[in-house]
């Protein structure tokens, strides 16, 4: 366990650029998926990462997990840099940090039974104990609300919600300190989403686990996270305590995002003050100069075009905004 007060995860100046070819066979281009991102996650805390397509949130998630190496910057888990770890250390790290992906159907091997899927982490790390592990599997199924009879079945026999529960159970097998959840409910039906979110809340609370929740849905993120970060074009443009950012967004993009989220209330919908943002999300392959949001921003000034804004404190305590104009 981490010593109290010490940060669990530190992302420092992380950037990731991919080399690609335009349209498959065209000229070489650089895709700047993540641009100079800083973030911190405390033990037992849920940090939410909100962004739309091209924001780089999933790439950042994978870098945090060590599945992708950053082009620049570092990720430190309990003070230790992931990039500097040996193969063995990295493998050890996997026990402390786990993941739940968006598509449960794809993330589970259809040829494996539930038992094999849940046993795999134990076997990979040499922790399988013929006496104790089976009991652990039973406990895990109970935690996620799946019946013991599920052990005999293959994952394809379950519904989407059940598959995601299974994926969550798998992620918990080794008692991780940090769970990265990349759009855990996006592929599920609405009535199931609430179930899964509740489940994740319960688990997080019971185990005092940290969570990095990645989602395009601001409402979900605000509901589940103590602190959140809003990503646009690979940058965290606003970060702070969820309540503060939600009630009093300072970055124009955050404001636009909040305004665009449809709410299930017709009268409220009609009466809302809506911010209409034109254009499309910035293309990471050809980012605008200066602030990546400036072409779409109604508050943009000259300096927004020339200089990239760095996060600075605006608004409530802990609220950082990467914007020249915000107050």
């Amino acid at each position, binding site marked *: 366990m981490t010593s109290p007060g010490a940060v669990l995860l530190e992302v420092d100046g992380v950037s990731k650029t991919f080399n690609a070819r335009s*349209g498959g066979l065209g000229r070489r281009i650089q895709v700047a998926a993540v641009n100079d991102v800083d973030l911190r996650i405390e033990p037992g805390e*849920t940090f939410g990462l909100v962004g*739309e*397509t091209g924001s780089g949130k999933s790439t950042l998630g994978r870098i945090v997990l060590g599945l992708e190496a950053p082009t620049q910057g570092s990720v430190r888990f309990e003070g230790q840099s992931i990039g500097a770890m040996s193969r063995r250390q990295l493998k050890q790290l996997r026990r402390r940090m786990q993941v739940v992906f968006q598509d449960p159907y794809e993330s589970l091997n259809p040829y494996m039974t539930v038992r094999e899927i849940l046993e795999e982490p134990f076997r990979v790390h040499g922790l399988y104990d013929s006496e104790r592990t089976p009991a652990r599997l039973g406990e895990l199924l109970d935690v996620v609300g799946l019946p013991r009879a599920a052990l005999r079945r293959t994952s394809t026999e379950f*519904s*989407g*919600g*059940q598959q995601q529960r299974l994926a969550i159970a798998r992620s918990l097998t080794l008692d991780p300190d940090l769970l990265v959840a990349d759009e855990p409910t996006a592929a599920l*039906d*609405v*009535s*199931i*989403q*609430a*179930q899964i*979110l*509740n489940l994740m*809340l*319960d688990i997080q609370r019971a185990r005092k686990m940290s969570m990095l929740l990645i989602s*395009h849905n*601001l*409402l*979900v993120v*605000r*509901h*589940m*996270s*103590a602190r959140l970060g809003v990503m646009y074009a690979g940058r965290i443009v606003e970060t702070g305590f*969820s*309540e503060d950012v939600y009630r009093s967004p300072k970055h124009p993009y955050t404001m*636009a*995002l909040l*305004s*665009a*989220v*449809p*709410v*299930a*209330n*017709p*009268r*409220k*919908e009609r009466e809302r003050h*809506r911010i*209409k*943002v*034109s*254009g*499309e*999300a910035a293309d990471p392959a050809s980012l605008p100069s200066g602030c990546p949001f400036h072409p779409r921003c109604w508050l943009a000034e000259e300096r927004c075009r020339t200089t990239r804004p760095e996060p600075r404190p605006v608004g409530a305590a802990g609220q950082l905004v990467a914007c020249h104009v915000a107050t």
Partner: protein
Amino acid sequence: MTGTNADGRPVLEVEDLRTAIGGKDSRRLPVNGVSFTVSAGETVAVVGESGSGKTMTALSVMGLLPKGVAQVVGGRVAVSGRVISGLSDREMQSVRGVDIAYMPQDPVSSLNPALTIGLQVTEPILVHRKGTRQQAEKDAVDLLGKVGIPDPRRAMHAYPHQLSGGMRQRVLLAMCLIGQPSTLIADEPTTAVDVTTQEQIIDLLASIQTESHLAILLITHDLGVVARIASTVLVMYAGRVVEHGSAEQVFSEPMHPYTRGLLQSVDFDSVTPRTRLFALDGAPPQLGNLPAGCSFSSRCQYAEPVCRQAVPELAATTGTGLSACHVAARGELPPWTSTQDLRSGT
């Protein structure tokens, strides 16, 4: 044929539509007695989760059901007074795109990846409007501009994969509008795009509707989108319509436990952050495995013995709409306290 109906009669009429999977006599009915009308200038939303039958309803109306897998086995569909439900595939071809257009969800597969946008938009124009290719190309550029594509001339030479999801959705919409249909079926138009683009697409649909009195049938699972644009709402569950009423009424006083459950599931505002949300138990049913009586009974907190025996019909309730619920029909559903109303200041 434009969609203006001077006497305000419905443009799309669907009456007791039934579709079966796996043979005429199969008991698996993804569309099981669905009825509704859409008038010119009106947006009717069909809301449901997976297995509800909402997409199958749209496909049934369009005659686009996969052959050998599913077929319409009952009911009547009429567009602008003309019955289309019995028509052959050949005859339907002259109806599709002209009287009623279908805009599919945009997974990348809705557009041909090997052809430029220009080609894909120009061809239908040539078919529908006769005239030279040059004229058709000019029309195509105009149309692309109308649906909000910046620099349409350049977009004509682009391939689908070079466009963003939002742009592709606009192209699909443009293609639907070519034949100047009176009715548009929009199947999950906002699901594959970002929230900020979603807003633009909805606004676009609304403005086109205002301009040409288009009747829109909106298929979606997103209640927020429904609240923004629909005037009438149908909630589907396991192939049946379980609630049918004005958007105003369905959102402020839902009369079916499923509708209530759905609304509460996405009601983040009235729950303290980081506490449990309201969640319905169980999962949407599979067609082959429906419980006896009301399909929703196994998940319903108000269920009574009669619910497990008899399938409830759509009936009037204390509200202004219809609900297929025994408890609601008796007026015994508890009043709905819309928590958004109670809360102040947000």
